[in-house]
């Protein structure tokens, strides 16, 4: 192993480096200089995101434990973008008095989860995968309990750590059975030797269940709403976008490579769970009044849509999944960004009825939220439409007509509830709607990036074509 080989891991190494820089800044600065940590972290993260896009060598490390391919690098870049937007959006929230003394911890914990996700995506065997997964989940539980004086926040933290411990246990049980039947934990060896003996099918079911908890697929979704509601808005947005995206990425990679021998079987399992996930997520989302819970259930139903691309299983399907996550990052973070801004400015108002008549007082925020919800629902011309379109194409290409019908019906149902907040903002009359307030620069920048992303990613077909060329090399 030579030092140059470490260049393959540059995403992880750069993130580790900026984590250490932030830690040093936290240790060696006085209290009144700590204000600088917020811009410092954001700028460092922006640099890492940009450097990530530079062309890089590909290959494997540690005897195949670590794999760097163009597609995986693309996935890491997408996650970096998501994390950067979350960083920018949380800047004004971190300025409040309660959070003054734990600013750098927020960034440090988020960066460590990001390092874990990157290792997870690049993993070439189950050990590295599990290591990354744990690193990606444990710090986020601490972040969910970030709001020290809120009971709901503590509840979210404890629920998240319990559910991730449970799901990791189930996952490990599945992995141990895979190792027991195949005799190796390396993906390439497992994929060749994996058959359909009863024990191997059971191991897959355990593995699938563990991952389903992480992606919050019905019937393993019950923790989602409580955790999303309790955690601070910016942590929730990270959880619903970046964490979920990373889990979807590695899950889709593993399904089409490691478990390719039993593809017919897992496609049946995914078919049913995808249909249930879309439908139940939608039905529950209709009944929500708290916007964070609302977006939690919406994100469950989105996970169902994302599974369509995995079921497609082709290069088109893979590209559609990655592209959809990219679009989903911009749209969901746009929605969460507006909710966070309003929640911070109005002292924690997060209910749909609080948004009555918001367009009169805060037109820019209302329009951003509307655009984001349109994108989530899949209304043209925003990017969400193209994302859903490609997912549906991927399924239709393989002839899953019934699943496609269910998906289209669910899209129509989802239109109803995505338009509820829009109706509240534009049509409903309110005696005391949230007063006009001026967002600070960071919030504006964060929302502008989201809006630009939603529009540009949709229209620039180059992006989808580029992702598609990568997906051949997985």
């Amino acid at each position, binding site marked *: 192993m030579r030092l140059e080989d470490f260049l393959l891991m540059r995403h992880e190494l750069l993130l580790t480096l900026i984590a250490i820089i932030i*830690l040093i800044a936290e240790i060696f600065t006085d209290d009144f200089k700590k204000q600088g940590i917020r811009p410092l972290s954001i700028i460092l993260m922006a640099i890492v995101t940009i450097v990530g896009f530079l062309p890089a060598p590909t290959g494997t490390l540690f005897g195949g434990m670590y794999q760097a391919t163009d597609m995986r690098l693309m996935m890491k870049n997408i996650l970096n973008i998501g994390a950067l937007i979350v960083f920018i959006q949380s800047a004004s929230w971190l300025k409040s008095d309660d959070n003054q003394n734990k600013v750098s911890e927020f960034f440090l914990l988020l960066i460590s989860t990001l390092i874990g996700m990157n290792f997870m995506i690049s993993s070439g065997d189950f050990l590295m995968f599990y290591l990354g997964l744990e690193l990606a989940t444990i710090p986020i539980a601490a972040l969910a309990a970030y709001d020290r004086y809120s009971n709901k926040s503590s509840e979210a933290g404890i629920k998240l750590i319990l559910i991730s411990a449970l799901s990791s246990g189930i996952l490990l049980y599945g992995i141990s059975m895979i190792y027991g039947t195949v005799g190796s934990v390396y993906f390439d060896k497992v994929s060749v030797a994996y058959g359909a003996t009863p024990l191997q099918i059971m191991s897959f079911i355990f593995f699938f269940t563990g991952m389903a908890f992480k992606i919050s697929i019905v019937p393993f979704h019950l923790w989602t709403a409580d955790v999303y509601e309790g955690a601070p808005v910016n942590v929730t947005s990270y959880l619903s976008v970046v964490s979920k995206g990373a889990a979807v990425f590695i899950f889709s990679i593993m399904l089409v490579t490691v478990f390719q021998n039993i593809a017919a079987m897992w496609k049946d399992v995914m078919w049913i769970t995808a249909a249930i996930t879309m439908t139940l997520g939608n039905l529950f989302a209709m009944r929500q009044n708290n916007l964070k819970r609302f977006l939690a259930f919406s994100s469950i139903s989105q996970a169902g849509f994302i599974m369509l691309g995995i079921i497609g299983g082709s290069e088109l399907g893979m590209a559609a999944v990655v592209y959809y996550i990219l679009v989903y990052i911009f749209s969901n973070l746009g929605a969460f960004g507006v909710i966070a801004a309003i929640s911070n400015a109005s002292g924690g108002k997060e209910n749909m009825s609080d948004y009555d008549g918001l367009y009169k007082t805060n037109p820019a925020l209302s329009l951003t939220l509307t655009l984001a919800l349109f994108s989530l629902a899949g209304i043209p011309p925003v990017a969400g439409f193209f994302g859903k379109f490609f997912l549906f194409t991927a399924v239709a290409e393989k002839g899953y007509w019934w699943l496609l019908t269910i998906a289209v019906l669910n899209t129509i149902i989802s239109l109803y509830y995505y338009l509820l907040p829009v109706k509240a903002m534009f049509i409903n009359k309110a005696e005391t709607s949230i007063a006009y307030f001026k967002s600070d620069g960071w919030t504006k920048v964060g929302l502008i990036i989201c809006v630009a992303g939603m529009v540009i990613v949709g229209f620039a077909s180059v992006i989808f074509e580029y992702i598609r060329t990568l997906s051949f090399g997985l």
Partner: protein
Amino acid sequence: MSSESLILFFIVGVFLVGGAIVFSTFVPPSSVNPNKSDTYECGIPTKGLSWLQFNVGYYLFAILFLIFDVETVFIFPWAVVMKQLGMVAFIEILIFFVILGLGLLYAWKKHALIWE
């Protein structure tokens, strides 16, 4: 490993463990009383509720101790093969140390080491 050695290993194992138990029943003086079969509580009945609040400092110290304790596990295998691995591994372990040291510095700076 042939099956004979496995059987031998098994027999020796059974005799060692079984022998120790049998041996210990003969050798020490025995005293039987009800207190001995009580729940283990250092021999004294508990006073008051056992739902006490512990100083959170205990946990901080335990965690800090654990970090440097587990560090040994990483250093030992490295030390065994240090010569073969050469300079790269040396730099790697140095970085590892520095990061751990930063963690301790951080705890120090956050006043986690002050016992109140």
